[in-house]
C-alpha cells in the first residue's frame, strides 16, 4: 500500500536524522452508537514512520481527518502514542511532565491549525508572543524580540497590548506564527500555518520561512492543504490518508509522478486560476 521511494528518509541516508518518528500509532475511543454496542475505535494514526534531516523541510498533505494534526501532537510530545517512539537528536520525546521536555521545546516550536483556539483569550498578544521566550528562558531583550517577530509577520508592534479577539482571522494566524518564531527554533512544525492568510501575506511569510531555512537551516514540518506551499518550501513530501502515509518522497517526484491513486486525485483536484 505504501509507495515508498528511494529517498524516503529525508535525504539523510546514513546521517543521523534530526527528528525521527518510528511506528507511531494513536487511536481514539469513540462514543457508542447504541447503548449495548461496543465502543468504537478510530485509528487516527497507524504505523507512521518519518525522518527529518537537519535543515530539511517535510511537507505533509492528506485528506481531511487523515490524522495529520494527531501526528503533529505526537511529534511534539503533546500526546502519548499507543505505540512507537519519537526521537529528537537521538533523545526520546515522551509526553509527561512539562519540565522534562524543555530541552526539546527550545528547539522545536509549533503553529497550530486553529489560531483562534490556540491563543488564550485573556492574554494580550504581546504576552502570548513573549510566552515561549519567558518559558524557555531565552536570553536577550524579550520586548525587542517580540517587536521584531511581529514586524516580520507584517503586524504593527503597537498591537502588543490588544487581545486576540480584536484581530481578523489572518492577523491571528500571523500572531501564532510570530509566537512560534520568537525563540528562534531549529524546527518549526506548522499545522496549516498559512491557511488563513491572503496570498500576498502568505507569499511574504513563505519568503520569511524560506530565508530562515536557507540562512539558519530552520527545519520545517508543514502540514498543508495547499500544494503550492509545500512545493515552494519542502524538499520532501508525505501523503497521508486514513492514518497512514500512503506515499512519500522528494517533492518534485511525487508531484510530477504520483504513484498512489489518492495522491493523483489530490493533484487533479487542485483548483487553478484562469490563465492571464
Amino acid at each position, binding site marked *: 500500500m505504501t509507495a515508498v521511494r528511494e529517498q524516503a528518509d529525508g*535525504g539523510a541516508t546514513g546521517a543521523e536524522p534530526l527528528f525521527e518518528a518510528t511506528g507511531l500509532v494513536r487511536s*481514539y475511543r*469513540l*462514543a457508542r*452508537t447504541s447503548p449495548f454496542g461496543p465502543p*468504537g475505535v478510530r485509528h487516527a494514526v497507524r504505523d507512521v514512520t518519518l525522518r527529518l534531516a537537519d*535543515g530539511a*523541510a517535510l511537507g505533509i498533505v492528506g*485528506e*481531511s*481527518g487523515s*490524522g*495529520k*494534526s*494527531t501526528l503533529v501532537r505526537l511529534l511534539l510530545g503533546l500526546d502519548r502514542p499507543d505505540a512507537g517512539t519519537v526521537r529528537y537528536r537521538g533523545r526520546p520525546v515522551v509526553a509527561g511532565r512539562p519540565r522534562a521536555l524543555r530541552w526539546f521545546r527550545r528547539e522545536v516550536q509549533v503553529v497550530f*491549525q*486553529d489560531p*483562534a*483556539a490556540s491563543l488564550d483569550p485573556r492574554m494580550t498578544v504581546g504576552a502570548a508572543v513573549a510566552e515561549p521566550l519567558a518559558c524557555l528562558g531565552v536570553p536577550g531583550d524579550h520586548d525587542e524580540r517580540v517587536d521584531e517577530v511581529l514586524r516580520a509577520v507584517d503586524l504593527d508592534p503597537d498591537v502588543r497590548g490588544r487581545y486576540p*479577539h*480584536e484581530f*481578523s*482571522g*489572518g*492577523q491571528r494566524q*500571523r500572531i501564532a506564527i510570530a509566537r512560534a518564531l520568537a525563540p528562534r527554533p531549529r524546527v518549526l512544525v506548522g499545522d*496549516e500555518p498559512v*491557511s*488563513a*492568510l*491572503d*496570498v*500576498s*501575506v*502568505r*507569499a511574504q511569510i*513563505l519568503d520569511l520561512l*524560506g530565508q530562515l*531555512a536557507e540562512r539558519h537551516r530552520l527545519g520545517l514540518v508543514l502540514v498543508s*492543504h*495547499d*500544494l*503550492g506551499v*509545500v*512545493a*515552494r*518550501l519542502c*524538499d520532501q513530501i508525505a501523503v497521508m490518508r486514513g492514518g497512514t502515509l500512503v506515499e512519500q518522497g522528494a*517533492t*518534485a517526484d511525487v*508531484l*510530477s509522478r504520483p504513484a498512489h491513486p489518492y495522491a493523483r*486525485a*489530490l493533484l487533479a*483536484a487542485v*483548483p*487553478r*486560476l*484562469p490563465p*492571464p
Partner: protein
Amino acid sequence: MTTDAAVLEVTDLRVRLGGVDVVDGVSFALAAGERLGLIGESGSGKSLTALAVLGLLPAGARVTGSVRLQGRELLGGSDRELSRLRGRDLAMIFQEPSTALNPLMRVGRQISEPLRLHRGYSRQAAARAAVELATAVGLPDPQRLVRSYPHELSGGQRQRVCIAAALACRPALLLADEPTTALDVTVQAEILALLGRLVAEAGTALLFITHDLAVVAAVTRRLAVLRRGRVVETGATDDVLRAPADPHTRALLAAARLTQWNLPAAGSAAARTSP
C-alpha cells in the same frame, strides 16, 4: 417580492470599531441564485461585512447604512427579530469553526438545531436530518460522528459540521467566510459542488469570502475586492482576474500566481534543493 429582486441589498455599510471605519461604505446586491465573491487582503473587513449583515458584530461596533434582506431592513432591527431569521433565511459559515461550535454539545444536535428551532422538527426527525446533512458534507461514519463532541473532530471535520448546520434550513442567503480553508482539495471540491447545488436548487444567494483566487474563480460569477474597508474593484470574476484594474488587486493576483502550484511545469517545485 418578484423573483429577480435582490435577496440582499447592502448600501453604504459602515462599521466603526474603536474609532476606525473598518468597513467604510460598502455597497453590493445579491439576487436569488447569485454567487458573489468577496476577496481582499487580511484585515480588509471581509468578515466584519458578513457579520454586519448577520447582525452579530462585536458589541461596541457602530454600524450605519442599510442591509436589506428580501426587501426588509435588518440594521436597527431587534435582536429577537434577527435571531428568528438567522439560521433560517440567512446563515453564515464562520471563518474559525472552533469559535462557532459549542464545545459541550454533540455535533449532531448542533447541525440540526436550526431545523428544530425554525422548522419545528421533532427530536427524531432532527437526529435523522443531522445524519443526512453530515453525509451530504462528506463526513465519514456519520452515524457515529453526530454523537461526538467538537473536540473529537479534526479541523476539517469541524468546518464541515458548521457548513452542514448552515445549510440545514436551505437559507435564502448564505454567507460563507472562508468555508474551505481547513479542507483538502478533494473534499473542498465536493463541498464547492454541494454549495453549487444548493444555489441552483434552492436559489440561495451566496456571498463567498475567500483568499483562494482559484476557488473564487471556480465558484463565483461576480467579484468584489475589498481593501481597508472599501470596495476597490468589482466586476465579472473572469474579467477582474484576467485584467484587474486596481493595482492592489494586480499585486494580489501576481502573488497568487507566484504561490500557485503548477501541474506539469513544476519549475518552482522544490526550489530549495537539499544540501
